[in-house]
């Protein structure tokens, strides 16, 4: 993983290279414009929540950043390197920066939990069994799961346990950017609170940059330092999480009031 150097502008003040930068990103499906010129910067160590109603392009934006979808125009830089237009090999190398928690966990059904958790370390191979099981046990402990789940299949775990196991898998290779896609969707309020706290602890411990896609205001306030509001394919508001209640933006106000 490349170290992020600080750029020195002419005035001598250090201006950090953003870990993630989206410049005028557009993406359409047929005639439907999902992203319509998105501009966004996330600096190192920052925790950003991207909010917006259903179908506003939050997940599409995330998939474009990960290189899973190709934007129609615009560019995406990861630690200063272009993700858009990069070769498959370079995209795969850039993905080493990321750890991703998918909405439904996306654990591999065909593998036991210990192989799921250590997948990024083994490249999907089954070798170094003893060492990897120990590593998986350690990671699972970090997210509050015991060794009794090591040999279970994902389908044997509850929704909350699957989220935790998926979180353990996302942090296994010590990524410097963590993505959380709707981390609390489908969980009861107590479990959602636990997952939120766990995310905050892990992000702080690892010193990682975090981007959370959510429409859960409580989750956004707990996890994020900064919030960006996506509406009709554009970022219409971007500010500290603490200013959500007095954003001065009508759409953000409606969103906040509508949910609370």
């Amino acid at each position, binding site marked *: 993983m490349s170290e992020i150097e600080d750029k020195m502008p002419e005035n001598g003040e250090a201006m950090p290279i953003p870990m993630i930068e989206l410049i005028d990103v557009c993406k359409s499906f047929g005639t439907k414009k999902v992203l319509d010129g998105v501009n966004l910067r996330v600096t190192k160590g920052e925790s950003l929540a991207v909010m917006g109603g259903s179908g506003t392009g939050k997940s599409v934006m995330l*998939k474009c950043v*990960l*290189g*899973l979808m190709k934007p129609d125009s615009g560019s995406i830089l990861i630690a200063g390197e272009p993700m858009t237009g990069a070769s*498959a090999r370079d995209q*795969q190398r850039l*993905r*080493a920066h*990321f750890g*991703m928690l*998918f*909405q*439904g966990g*996306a*654990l*591999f*059904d*065909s593998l036991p939990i210990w192989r799921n958790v250590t*997948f*990024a370390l083994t*490249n*999907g*191979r*089954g070798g170094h069994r003893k060492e990897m099981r120990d590593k998986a046990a350690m990671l699972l402990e970090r997210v509050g799961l015991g060794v009794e789940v090591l040999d279970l299949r994902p389908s044997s775990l509850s929704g909350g346990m699957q989220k935790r196991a998926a979180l353990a*898998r996302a942090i296994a290779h010590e990524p410097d950017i963590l993505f959380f896609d709707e981390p609390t969707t489908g969980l009861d309020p107590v479990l959602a609170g636990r997952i939120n706290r766990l995310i905050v602890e892990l992000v702080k411990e690892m010193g990682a940059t975090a981007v959370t896609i959510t429409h859960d205001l409580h989750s956004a306030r707990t996890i994020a330092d900064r919030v960006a509001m996506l509406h009709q394919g554009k970022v219409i508001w971007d500010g500290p999480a603490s200013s959500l209640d007095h954003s001065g933006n009508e759409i953000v106000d409606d969103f906040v009031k509508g949910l609370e």
Partner: protein
Amino acid sequence: MMLILRLLAALGRAVIGVFAGAGRLVIFAAQVIRAALVPPYYFGRLFEQMALIGWFSLPVVGLTALFTGAALAQQIYVGGGRFNAASTVPAIVVFGMIRELGPVLVGLMVAGRVASAMAAELGTMRVTEQIDALATLRADPFRWLIAPRLIAGVLMLPLLVMVANAIGIMGGWLLSVNKLGFNSGAYLATTRKFIEHDDFVMALVKAAVFGFFIALLGCYHGYRASGGAAGVGAATTRAVVSSFIMILLSNLIITLAVFG
């Protein structure tokens, strides 16, 4: 005039749709072949798929071949009897099983069992974001998921066809000796005389081609599945129907090329 234009437009859309679909499939096939030939290889995944496609298909393939061989012997005995040619049973059972019925029946049985399973598994992985998760964990889905299935299909179908041919010929022999009054030694001697090297090779080539199409179409439709459970169901149906068609079409092409 407008009606004619509309009809032509609809026809044009359908033709473009067919060519676009064929193009997507060819590009997919090229990507899979590249992933199958260029390292890294996942031998563990390959052996797993070889067992699933080969070993676990043996019961259904064996039973199908046994019953078909016996039924074929009975039909040839009855039909041949009209022309005083009942003694041709062993020769026609050999030709029928090795040249056509062995490869085609194995192909269809394995397509029903394996193409559907591949499409359902990959389709479920697609709609639950497990394929996206693979990419974010830096494992190429083509290498980890699809190439082992394609190689296993190409390697296992010829073995299954060899087994099916042997069992089918045995089914004909069992019925002929026990019901139709053939002499066992004479039947087997005629059988050996009519087993030709070129027929045997053609059967194996057909089997490898069928294995390729079964794995390719099962994976292709599963990989492109969308729209939840209904989408996975539709992908599974498409995988089975398209592999049936490709098996029967490629069988005709190979038969015409060799005997035409």
